[in-house]
């Protein structure tokens, strides 16, 4: 059992003071613009101090226990158990059971919850698709793409414009959106082939912004900041659907899209090209020395990732029935990147869980009212501090389990 030292107490006091300082303008100072007064809520400062102090002590306790356990494992007194997530996912019966439960829940969701909730879940599922798409580029191939939102915008505007000018419907545009995404993926991939790491990130970030600025300013083409409205939702054999029914229908379509994406990404991950992507991520020079064409492999990653963003963009346009450039800012790219990193690079389950957490949490934190985004940010920071490798680390396939 670990003991609390005076050093721990000093550290905890330091942490408490630091957070009190940080949150002073947020939690203590309240400006009432109507009555033109400033209210000083000193009791909040006290709460922050106490919470920070306690949290620091608790985390130190956990760290000490973990260290002690590692020491005991090293000395052979205790067995090293594989990570909890691996135990959960590795057990085939457990996985099947959990999968069936989840499937039933998702299928019954519209019957159990309001249309508003269904809408939220649809949004979350779209981000799952985006996360899985970006996972190909960032998680598998290791190419830090900060401009992913560009392909999302391409898909959305493809639907908006093709409907506006040619009256094309959802199902016609969906594959077109994917193809256009792939095309732009290759176009944007070519200039960045020689770049690595930070430079690749900056250039892709630039591309994301270029697309948005073009959409905003080339009004003759994209109708500028006012956007394009009246985009139809997907039809069901020409039936007339009420708003509620259309939303539920779109929910099931998005769910199908998620399943399709998971299927494809899973196949890709354990294929010849998936291995080439991982080799590229691990060691570019060794990868080339083994006969893998760096150019084609990188372009394939960009193209495939962008295809999914394009298709997700078509879904987005169908869901919100209105697109404008403001929906495709860098923040979107950042959120999708967060999803991939939080989920664990290359892990499908991790990305799905991370997407659901990241999108659903702000919605369900509405109970915290004003402090919703503060808590959200704190959760993100905590996740990266305590589990930087992501929720679920990618596990490679084994081939000789029969031996």
């Amino acid at each position: 059992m670990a003991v609390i030292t005076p050093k721990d107490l000093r550290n905890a006091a330091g942490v408490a003071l630091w957070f009190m300082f940080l949150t002073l303008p947020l939690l203590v100072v309240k400006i009432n613009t109507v009555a033109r007064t400033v209210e000083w809520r000193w009791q909040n400062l006290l709460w922050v101090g106490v919470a920070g102090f306690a949290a620091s002590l608790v985390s130190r306790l956990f760290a000490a226990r973990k260290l002690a356990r590692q020491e005991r494992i090293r000395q052979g007194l205790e067995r090293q158990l594989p990570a909890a997530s691996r135990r959960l996912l590795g057990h085939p019966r457990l996985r099947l059971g959990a999968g069936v439960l989840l499937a039933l829940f998702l299928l019954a969701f519209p019957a159990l919850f309001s249309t508003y909730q269904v809408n939220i879940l649809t949004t979350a599922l779209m981000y799952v698709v985006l996360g899985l798409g970006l996972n190909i580029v960032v998680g598998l191939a290791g190419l830090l793409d900060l401009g992913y939102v560009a392909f999302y915008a391409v898909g959305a505007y493809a639907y908006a414009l093709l409907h506006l000018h040619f009256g094309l419907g959802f199902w016609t545009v969906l594959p077109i959106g994917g193809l256009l995404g792939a095309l732009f993926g290759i176009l944007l991939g070519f200039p960045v082939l020689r770049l690595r790491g930070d430079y690749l990130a900056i250039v892709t970030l630039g591309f994301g912004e270029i697309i948005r600025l073009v959409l905003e300013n080339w009004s003759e083409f994209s109708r500028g900041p006012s956007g394009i409205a009246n985009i139809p939702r997907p039809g069901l054999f020409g039936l007339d659907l009420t708003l509620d029914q259309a939303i539920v229908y779109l929910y099931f379509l998005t769910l199908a899209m998620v399943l399709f994406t998971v299927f494809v990404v899973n196949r890709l991950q354990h294929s010849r090209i998936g291995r080439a992507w991982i080799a590229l991520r691990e060691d570019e020079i060794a990868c080339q020395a083994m006969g893998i064409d760096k150019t084609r492999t990188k372009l394939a990653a960009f193209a495939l990732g962008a295809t999914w963003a394009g298709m997700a963009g078509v879904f987005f346009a169908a869901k919100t029935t209105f697109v404008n450039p403001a929906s495709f800012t860098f923040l979107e790219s950042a959120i999708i990147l967060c999803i991939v990193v939080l989920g664990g690079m290359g892990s499908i389950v991790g990305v799905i869980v991370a997407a659901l957490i990241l999108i659903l949490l702000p919605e369900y934190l509405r109970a915290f009212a004003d402090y919703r985004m503060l808590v959200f940010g704190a959760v993100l920071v905590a996740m990266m501090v305590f589990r930087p490798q992501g929720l679920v680390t990618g596990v490679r396939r084994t081939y000789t389990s029969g031996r």
Partner: protein
Amino acid sequence: MPPLLQVSGLTMDFGGIRALDHLDLRVRHGEIVALIGPNGAGKTTFFNCLTGIYTPTGGDLVLTPPGREPRRLNGLKPSRITEQGLARTFQNIRLFKSMTVLENVMIGRHCRTRTGIVGAVCRGPRTRREEREIVGTSLALLERTGLADQADEVAASLPYGAQRRLEIARALATEPLLLLLDEPAAGMNPQETAELIELIMAIRADGLSILLIEHDMKLVMRLSDHIFVMDYGRRIAEGTPAEVRRDPAVIRAYLGEETTDA
């Protein structure tokens, strides 16, 4: 029959520094050739030029596969050169650490297989057959290098000697004509070195040619059919192990000049 690999007048400049100075070297079919020399002589730079990581400033690198036209390697992409039949291991081991042992070797099969994106997603009979072949060939290579029992372990968890053997297995998976080994015995104990010698001789018995950089003189003398000695980027001697051992230029390069006032 022309040599498998002919290097003529190879020069490599990095700005003002001449790392390779009109280097001449050749490897004949089925030969084990050793490239030795003091540290900093330019041996690994030579390997990097040979495998396309650097583009040589001058000279010729010509590969002549048996029964085929000679092919100039200068300026080709590294992946292309591997396709032509050159495979290498690295001085500082460059394995794909987060992949399993078997998957590292499977990567070597990439340039000899063809399944693309569509095949990966659909997994038709041709794809499945190719995957089975990849796994089968890779497992066989692991058997040869004594790593079959660790096939599903993560590569990073292997001990040092096993990692070196894994690199060799991975290079062999590309079906090379010429295997380039960069200090394969570095850090190995005598037992491991003896096993390595066996392995290299078995590889040669399969019809490959081998060019190796080594500092372990016992291994070099035992294995090599021919030795090239480098210093300051140029060839200072060549010959059979016995000839090279006696060559005064070689002795001078390694041990320095004899002085009279010590």
